[in-house]
């Protein structure tokens, strides 16, 4: 991935209101703790695919409870129990399925995650990604996606910055219904994912 694409992504992601870090793997725990502290997060949820990139279950957050959202939960959890579990989460940590430089967007392909609620309900979300996942523009994104659109089942979505509204006198307010804080940790030394859904 060429560096102009990374530079464009950094610019656009930040302009959209996202907060970007480019740590090495070694720095990740420190940065996550800083974010946790900043967000005053007491209940943290980590989705299972994160663990494939980074063994976060061995990194406890001080003063917070940490739980893992796993694919297995899909089979065992009832709707109400699942909702009960997720409704009071303060911060979620998730992987991404692509990054679009042109718009500073994050791609989420639903089948690659144990759910969709965890990146929508809490006030803060932290995404972990690798520079391999960068895509130049929307054209390139949809060209790549089109090869396996049929198998994408229940769909996908793009997240560009935090939830926002300008419905009162056109004044921008961050954090309407979705997260008010969107962090991205672009791991400079991340291994290529075993299974890149967009490749």
């Amino acid at each position: 991935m060429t560096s102009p694409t990374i530079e464009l992504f950094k610019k656009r992601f930040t302009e959209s209101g996202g907060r970007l870090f480019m740590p090495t793997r070694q720095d990740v725990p420190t940065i996550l703790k800083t974010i946790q502290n900043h967000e005053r997060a007491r209940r943290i949820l980590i989705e299972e695919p994160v663990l494939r990139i980074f063994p976060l279950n061995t990194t406890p957050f001080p003063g917070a409870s940490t739980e893992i959202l796993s694919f297995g939960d899909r089979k065992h959890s009832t709707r109400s129990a699942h909702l009960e579990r997720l409704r009071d989460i303060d911060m979620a940590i998730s992987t991404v399925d692509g990054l679009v430089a042109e718009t500073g967007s994050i791609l989420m392909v639903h089948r690659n995650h144990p759910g969709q609620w965890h990146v929508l309900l809490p006030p803060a979300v932290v995404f972990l990604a690798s520079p391999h996942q960068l895509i130049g523009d929307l054209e390139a994104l949809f060209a790549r996606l089109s090869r396996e659109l049929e198998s994408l089942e229940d769909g996908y979505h793009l997240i560009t910055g935090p939830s926002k509204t300008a419905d009162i006198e056109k004044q921008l307010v961050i954090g309407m219904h979705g997260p008010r804080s969107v962090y991205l940790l672009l791991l400079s030394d991340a291994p290529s994912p075993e299974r890149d859904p967009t490749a």
Partner: protein
Amino acid sequence: MDHNPLTNPTRNAPASGFKQWVRLYLQNSRYRENIRRATEHALEQRRLAVDEIPDWERLRQEGHRRKQQIIDHLPEHLNQFIENARARGIVVYQAPDARTANQFVEQIARQHGVRRIVKSKSMVTEEIGLNAHLQQNGLEVVETDLGEYIVQLAGETPVHLVGPALHKSRQEIGQLFAEKLGVTYTEDPSELTRLARNILREKFLTADMGITGANFGIVDSGRVVVVENEGNARLCMTLPRIRVVIMGMERLIPSEADLPLFLTLLCRSATGQRLTSYVSITGGPASSPSPEGPEKVYYVVVDNGRSRLLQDPHLKKALYCIRCAACYNICPIYQTIGGHAYGWVYQGPIGAVITPELSGDQRADDLPFASTLCGACSDICPVKIPLHHLLLYQRQRIVQRTSGPHSEKLGFALFEKLARHSMLWNRMIRLLGKVQRVFPGELPVPGWTHSRIFPRVEWPTFTQWWQKHKRKTP
């Protein structure tokens, strides 16, 4: 009692017509100031976003071409879309009119024992009067887009396609919240937003059914695309057990490969963003077991007068519309009178073109005349709908259909006679010039000079001047 949901249900549309309505809103200076500020802001945001795209004109052309392909063969594309959606396990219902669409949604709710419905912004549901229907049948419907929530609390309708509550000042919204929600008065937008968020979050968590519109339906995948900033549409489509998508039958684009184009055209034209915070491309219910996501997905594809537009070789171009509201913002009429003065759900230039057909109501006949024909709407339209030509065309049709007032007919017959005979014309103009010199005040012509100035004849007239000077010119 007015049963046409297309009309503004805040008040009955005035029997005396649109002009009376406009006069009323022109007197409301706070409303006008809010509209002016909002449209100005939106235009500036759009300009900045569009300036980033060097080949914007080519994109518009391309958007026009791809929508034309769809609309020219709409029945085939629609069948294909529905077939593909059904293959994903989605139940699709085609509603010929508002009544059947509303009944179908009610029936879905009954079938699944639904009590509370959360809803994201959808103009087609405003058009068919869905909320009123569901509420009359004992269901709770909560609008969750902040602007929509505000107008729902106020018992009003959206004043704009993109900003439903942009006519309200923060003070008005603060008072509304204090009055309807029993909270302490505040006019701080962040605080008002937080209040709404907390109330609506509880509604989301306890809703049985979520209703969204669709910005695009994708023919070759049967998926729908929803574009938003707040995240409320994502909550509506993923939290409740039952998901219902309501869309106009013209909302189609050929494939997901068309999304880069249409997302660029829509987001930049509507809000001046490169992309909105959330763009969801969703299919049917999850194929593997999951405690999340809807168990059942329904599409309600609404005609409600769109076939009438489709049958007309010119008006069918209005079906290319992607509902960005750029034509509202740029229109000198909309800027001056605001959305509510139109008295209908769809306003601005596009509303003036489509409402007479969608409503089939003669009271909408005034709308195409609410235009200066300046053409700014056609110039700004991201899919190049020739809006001012369509406005003129609608006027023609309306005049032919209703044959217009007798005095106007008489006037034009007289004009035709005079214009065909230069002697008569010259004499008439000279006479008029003399009259105007004797009576220098404005010449009143009933029904015409009310909102126009009768032009003054130049004196001497051109023909008089020419007679005097023509020999001197070589």
